[in-house]
């Protein structure tokens, strides 16, 4: 005679096996992520150069800019050579001190913007494998929750009091690299979403080929920025004059409007 409880016992057994499977898989994934971070961080990179193409789309109009980036990872100085809308060279250090030089007019301007520090950009974070929070912790953000959602490791960061218009940042990692981040305001509305895709796997670090930003404007419009990276080169010696570029001494200092 079959007992009534047999169906319930089979289902319970199946559910227990399923949750044990999830625990085992998540544990292996955590160990794998830690291993990748450890191995990657053991080999610092000195000089990195790459090409960046940034396209900004507003409505049906877009603006394309091609930039060459030269990053000295020891002195933390990043040089950007812009070719459109006009030729410009900017040199930024870790304090956010920026020198902007126009090679045609031989004019230079100086400013300090902490948000544009050489340690606050995609290149710095990925070259140094600081991808777990992409600088949020350094700006005072606090980790409030983290969990696995299928193949994604999702973390939520709360903004410090000093940052008024952002309440939380949600990040998702897959296979040890960030794939998504979302900035939320006080009402839980998304201010900006960023997607990181198509990772290059280099011996020293992993770098996204494409970064897509969607910034939501108050009127319901949005601005989409698509940034593509290519020709990433790593060396132990500065193989270009633009590494730690020096502004010519005869450059004329001008004020920024």
């Amino acid at each position, binding site marked *: 005679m079959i007992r009534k409880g047999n169906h319930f016992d089979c289902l319970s057994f199946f*559910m227990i096996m399923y949750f044990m499977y999830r625990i085992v898989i998540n544990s292996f994934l955590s160990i794998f992520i830690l291993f990748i971070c450890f191995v990657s961080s053991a080999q610092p990179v000195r000089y990195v150069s790459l090409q960046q193409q940034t396209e900004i789309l507003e409505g049906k109009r877009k603006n394309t800019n091609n930039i060459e980036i030269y990053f000295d990872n020891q002195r933390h100085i990043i040089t950007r050579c812009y070719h459109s809308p006009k030729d410009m060279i900017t040199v930024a250090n870790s304090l956010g001190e920026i020198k902007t030089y126009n090679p045609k007019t031989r004019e230079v301007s100086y400013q300090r913007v902490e948000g544009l520090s050489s340690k*606050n950009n995609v290149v710095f974070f990925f070259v140094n494998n600081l991808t777990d929070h992409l600088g949020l912790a350094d700006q005072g953000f606090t980790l409030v929750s983290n969990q696995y959602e299928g193949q994604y490791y*999702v973390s939520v960061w709360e903004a410090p009091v000093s940052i008024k*218009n*952002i309440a939380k940042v949600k990040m*998702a990692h897959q296979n040890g690299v960030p794939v998504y981040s979302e900035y939320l305001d006080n009402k839980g509305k998304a201010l900006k979403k960023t997607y990181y895709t198509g990772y290059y796997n280099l011996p020293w670090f992993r770098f996204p080929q494409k970064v897509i930003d969607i910034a939501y404007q108050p009127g319901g419009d949005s601005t989409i920025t698509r940034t593509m990276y290519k020709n990433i080169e790593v060396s132990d010696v500065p193989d270009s004059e633009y590494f730690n570029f020096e502004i010519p001494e005869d450059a004329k200092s001008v004020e920024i409007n």
Partner: protein
Amino acid sequence: MKNTIYILFVFIALMGIKPAMASSYTINEPVVDQLFDNAVESDMLSFSSLEMSNAMSASGMALNAEKDAIVAILLDAFLGTLGIHRFYLGTETLSGLAYILTCGGIFGVVPLIDFIVLIINYEDISPFVNNPSFFMWKGHL
């Protein structure tokens, strides 16, 4: 039997929810590529705007939101009944138009309160930047 069906339902629901949440972390790249392919190239950006787009983090977003309190106060003083100061600070289109639709912000009352609030909070007007509410000072008085 009822218990079995209930547990089975919960189990299937759990299996369904997780993948649906995870799909929100990816983007349909071909759609984005199509938007860019269909767009017209223009020189709409200034160089400083491009520099800002390079700023990575939350502080970069906070920089973009900074507005001048004096400009907001002057716009409110002279054009407050048209809601121009709200468009400058950033708001929903309807919230800004509501100033005109309500005969100058309820006959000038709302712009007057906006003016007083902006003066009092001169040093930090960030709660009123990108505030979608018609009464931008709601919850901040």
